[in-house]
């Protein structure tokens, strides 16, 4: 009964792993940050599937924490890291 959910979680794990190529390749900083967002959404789905597959309902709460905290990183990035650096010229590494 739970084999199917584990199989779907196994299919979703490469979706995260391949998405990490964008961290290494992404031209702008926001492209790199988007991968953290992918981790948030995809990680929630994997945790929900694992909670059915491993018969462990506690994992739903970890999915809640994932959903909330991946957004926190993006919020800090746009408000603190990426703003205001346009005053500098082309030598800015974050542009």
């Amino acid at each position: 009964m739970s084999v199917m959910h584990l199989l779907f979680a196994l299919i979703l794990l490469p979706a995260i792993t391949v998405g990490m190529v964008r961290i290494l390749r992404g031209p702008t900083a926001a492209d790199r940050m988007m991968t953290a967002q992918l981790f948030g959404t995809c990680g929630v789905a994997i945790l929900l599937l694992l909670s059915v597959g491993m018969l462990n309902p506690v994992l739903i709460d970890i999915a809640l924490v994932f959903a909330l905290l991946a957004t926190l990183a993006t919020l800090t990035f746009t408000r603190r890291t990426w703003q205001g650096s346009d005053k500098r010229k082309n030598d800015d590494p974050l542009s």
Partner: protein
Amino acid sequence: MTILYHSGTVFIIIGVLFFLSGTVGLLRFPDIYTRLHALTKADNVGLGFVVFGLALQSGTLTVAIKLLLIWFLVLIASSASCHLIASSAMQKKIVPWTRP
């Protein structure tokens, strides 16, 4: 019961396909706005299908409502961060991609 279970399986398969297409979009699309579009929309629809399928399979109403609330939270959070990234990219005057 079995009809609910199998229809839930179909929904989960559709959701997984949406997730895979979201990742392909993140890797293949040309600029930041199109990537944001692929990532946020496709992945949230995929998560919606997965959550709906799991809620159909769960059998109890409380677990189903909890799963739907998780999807609602993810929807709010990721649309907010998508909007933040896109508006600060516009402020930094990144030009959207057009077909050459």
